[in-house]
């Protein structure tokens, strides 16, 4: 799968190259951060390490692909008035409507998974819960594989590979899209945490029994955490699917490992239960990865192809040596 993204840019002068690398790092970091927030909200709300995040993210991207490609199906009434041009790339508004729908479906998937697989196990040790999420990941596998094993499925990105010229650097619209998406996600999560259910979720995270004693319905909070978590990782997957990221505007088998494993160093760095931590962790990991890919490229023969993909894990190990709780995590997490 090795990364078109991570191949070094043709040199067009120091500054444009640097700027391009920086923006690429920010864009990839935005995607990691959104996925990280999706992971963190599940951990915060339900004390579950969600190792199904990769599978759920894939499924979310698949829902998107199904909606944008097969929207001519009669049971999708919105498709006809909005998309007489079935088979061609949709307009941006129609694409966005599909995006919202795909996220809603992903959220429902998250809530259903929580209800059938997580809720009955509430109160079990952290490790058992983590194994259950691994089970979910495995169970989602065939669905994701069957849908994508033959061909990658298009996400019908309206702006394709278009880019803006800026100070001599080419800035792909997808990069800007990823950053905008991350900012929106971050702002809405912050708003959510001030809302009635958001405050309830933080209360449950701090002291579940005391939250119950206030009449907070813990099951409902769990459900919301999984719904939001699923929608967020789906955002990450869909925006990672855009060119010029390696999937080149598709959802395919090849993005699954990235979705499943790259989020781990991000949230371990950020500290499992911290939303700002996920943001900074994502930006840091992605920048390290992208800058190493760009500026260590002449050592590829020594470092080995694809060396930049292990950079995140190296960064994670170094930070953990200095700060075992991650950059922003609370120390209490060590209890678990």
């Amino acid at each position, binding site marked *: 799968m090795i990364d078109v993204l991570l191949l070094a840019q043709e040199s067009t002068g120091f500054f444009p190259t640097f700027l391009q690398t920086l923006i690429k790092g920010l864009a990839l970091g935005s995607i990691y951060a959104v996925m990280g927030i999706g992971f963190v909200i599940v951990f915060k709300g339900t004390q579950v390490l969600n190792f199904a995040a990769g599978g759920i993210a894939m499924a979310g991207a698949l829902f998107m692909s199904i909606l944008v490609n097969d929207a001519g199906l009669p049971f999708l009434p919105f498709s006809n008035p909005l998309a007489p041009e079935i088979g061609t790339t949709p307009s941006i508004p129609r694409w966005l409507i599909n995006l919202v729908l795909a996220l809603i479906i992903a959220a429902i998937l998250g809530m259903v998974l929580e209800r059938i697989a997580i809720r009955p196990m509430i109160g079990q040790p952290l490790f058992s819960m983590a194994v259950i999420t691994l089970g979910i990941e495995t169970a989602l596998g065939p669905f994701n594989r069957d849908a994508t094993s033959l061909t990658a499925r298009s996400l019908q990105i309206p702006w394709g590979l278009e880019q803006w010229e800026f100070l001599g650097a080419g800035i792909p619209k997808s990069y800007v899209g990823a950053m905008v998406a991350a900012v929106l996600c971050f702002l809405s999560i912050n708003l959510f945490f001030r809302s009635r259910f958001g405050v309830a979720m933080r209360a449950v995270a701090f002291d579940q029994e005391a939250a119950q*004693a206030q009449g907070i319905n813990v099951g409902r909070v769990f459900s919301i955490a999984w719904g939001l978590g699923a929608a967020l990782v789906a955002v990450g997957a869909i925006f990672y699917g855009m060119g010029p990221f390696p999937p080149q505007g598709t959802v395919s088998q090849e993005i699954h490992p990235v979705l499943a494993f790259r989020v781990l160093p991000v949230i371990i760095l950020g500290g499992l239960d911290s939303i700002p931590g996920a943001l900074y962790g994502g930006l840091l990991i992605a920048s390290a990865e992208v800058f190493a890919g760009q500026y260590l490229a002449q050592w590829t023969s020594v470092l080995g192809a694809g060396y930049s993909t292990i950079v995140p894990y190296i960064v994670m190990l170094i930070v953990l040596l200095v700060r075992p709780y991650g950059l922003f995590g609370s120390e209490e997490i060590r209890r678990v």
Partner: protein
Amino acid sequence: MLEISNLEVVYNEVALVLRGLSIEVPDGSVVALLGSNGAGKTTTARATTGLLDNHEGKSTKGTIMWNGQDITHMKPSSIVRAGISQVMEGRRCFGELTVDENLATGAFTNKDGAKRNYDRVMELFPRLLERRKQLAGYMSGGEQQMLAIGRAMMAEPKLMILDEPSLGLAPLLVQQVRDVISLINSEGTSILLIEQNAMMALSIADFGYIMENGKIVMDGEGQKLLADDDVKEFYLGLHGDESGERKSFRDVKHYKRRKKWAS
């Protein structure tokens, strides 16, 4: 009215902690539930507010009736909605939430009354108003106890259960907590006051129960219990030997009874 009859609670399927407990809290009254460490007071509070699940506990026999409705196995959220709130032992404020947010959690079941109850809480505890944007975790024990009581008030309960609200507070603050409880009661909320500080509890209680090993061993009107020699000796330490191991309340009674036969 809250009526607990012959309640048995078992932890971990084996440890029988409440052995046929019966108490009543009539509407509008303050009822004290006293007992030494491990008597089962907190367990009684948990059973009444549906929190046993969190501790692998179960009500295996008996009933808890609230205004004619059986709440023995109801969910905590339904019990709060039905009008019973608990101020838990150890305050249990949400340390990472601000004072305002803590109060907001208390209003979770009672959105409509949030504004009115918030004003009432702040009027009662001006200290909380000063600190409304501060994280609860950084407040003193006394302030946290006020917050915990205020948080319970946000649900506008008809019955408030307080589990050792005076624990770890300086005498002046204990007084203040007592006055606040009286005030809340005077506004129409029944109170079940769980305490080890018998003096404080009985001084405002209409009725008191003394429990030991999961059962009620004595009950009576507050003033009467306060005047009772056994209670005085055992709970108020008025005649007790300061140094020795605390005897069981029942031992005291047996001893007295035997003395009566002997004389």
